[in-house]
């Protein structure tokens, strides 16, 4: 019992120590010559046109929530597909019910304009 926790503790310490070691080696070894161009958020990318502290439109939030929902659907679908043979008809019915409920939510979101980007 205690041994198991000791292993976890050793792992935590190893990870912390190793991370600190690598970072400090980097600081000691790498050259440091900052230029304004290098300090941009996307170096070698499109130049910033406004500061990053600006406000975001809440549409991102709606899209993110919708994304999470369908992401979770996919997460449920994978194990179901793997175990499809064992689950049989029961699994199929359950999954169809699940997807129908999700589709109603999808239709609702679509109909209420959550997917439109004006």
């Amino acid at each position, binding site marked *: 019992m205690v041994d198991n926790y000791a292993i976890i503790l050793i792992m935590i310490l190893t990870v912390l120590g190793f991370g600190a070691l690598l970072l400090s080696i980097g600081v000691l070894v790498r050259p440091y010559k900052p230029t304004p161009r290098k300090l941009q958020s996307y170096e070698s990318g499109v130049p910033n046109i406004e500061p990053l502290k600006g406000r975001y439109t809440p549409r991102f939030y709606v899209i993110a929530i919708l994304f999470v929902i369908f992401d979770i659907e996919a997460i449920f679908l994978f194990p179901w597909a793997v*175990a499809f043979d*064992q*689950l049989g008809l*029961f699994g199929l019915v359950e999954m169809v019910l699940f997807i129908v*409920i999700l589709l*109603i*939510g999808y*239709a*609702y979101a679509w*109909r*209420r304009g959550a997917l439109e980007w004006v």
Partner: protein
Amino acid sequence: MDNPVAVALTLEDFKILIPHAIVLAVALLTLGYGAIAAPSPGRNAALTVISVFGYLGAIVAALLLTGQPRTAFSGMGALDDMAVFLIVVIAASALLTVFISAQTIPAWDMPLGEYYSLLAFSTLGGMLVASAVDLVMIFVGIELSSLSVFVLAAFAKRRRESIEGALKYFLLSSFATAILIYGMAWTYGVTGATNLNDISLRLATYQDRTAPTLLLAALLLIVGLGFKAAAVPFHMWTPDAYQGAPTPVTAFMSVAPKVTAFAAILRVLVQGLGPLREQWVPLVIVLSVLTMALGNLVAIAQRDVKRMLAYSSIAHTGYMLVGLAAFRQIGGGDESIPSVLFYNFAYAFMNIGAFGVLAWLQLHGKGTTIDDFNGLAVTAWPQAAAMAFFLFSLTGVPPLLGFYAKYFIILAAIEAGYTWLAVVVVLLSAVSAYYYLRVVAAMYFGDPAGAPTPARTRFFGVGLGAMVLSVALFGILSGPVLDLARQWYLAL
């Protein structure tokens, strides 16, 4: 090959979910239809009809499934008769809320489809808790129930108070949820089971029932559930959330989540932690006295009737906790849990009724302060009479429903040997008469201050009428209803 995912599910298992499936159908239909059809009075009427028949169907289905206690889904759920009783109370409170919402919500420019859908989801969560015999199912049900209510509390999204109250409710409730699940984790850690019957069986074999781990588990569970039931000192969110929410929502959230919380309390503390009775009863007694005292005393100072009813709903939690404190053992001769069940039943009708009249008043261009009730008996006598009826019932005036609810609680307390607790209930009921009857006095003796502006309120009449009838009729029939509660509880 050994089948690792084999779950022994039969069609019988799904039978216990028929009432839940009907409410789920209501939620999906109202959501879908509300989004597809263009807003019109016809659409709103159709949505209301779907909801009304859905809840009626769920109540009838639950009642048809009584008398044959079956556990299903490998012991996760059971539709025993106590579950049926609680399901009927929760579905009935949703039904009554529909009646007082049908015209108020569209009149205040809120989308009715989403409103009914969230109402149904919250009801579904409560019903799941009522028929759950497993800590995990109880948790899922409580979350479904409260998440929907958070959104409903913020439904008047252009009003600052609504957002503020909903945010407070959301944050404190999330906090309580964390405590609750921590308590469940400790319970599981000590007993090694999440099924409440297993927990009870294992606890009964323990020699040392005052082990710190067990006490911690019980404490965390009581704190978490106390938050959801709005018991003092975990009531901080209640007044603001109740006052900020649209009045029909307040009516619903003062009843359904509370009944849900009590369903969880009955399942967890009585069915699961029953063997630890001697450890948790003192705690429940302290909570009940604090809750009754603070709820009743602070309600006196309120000029706003909505806020006053919020504090009064805290006080009613206290009365219900008194019934719980009288618990001795599951089985014959124990009047405590039937009295709690009956109190929940009674509370649903009279409290939604009182909030209903308030919503009616707001729909007719009035505010919610006590001055808005001045002379209502002259300008709108049926509504004034209904309000007086509900308030008398909340005070506990015989022969109304509220009187019998309190009577059975007091009886249970005395039988359990807590005579002093019964005296506290009576004294604080006398205090409550002051603030309830002040509204009645304003309605009947105050000078009429402008007639209410007319508005279409067809459903209101039906709903308020049904509630007045129930408060009177079930008051007279309280004996049979309590017998039913007792008999159904004994079938546990």
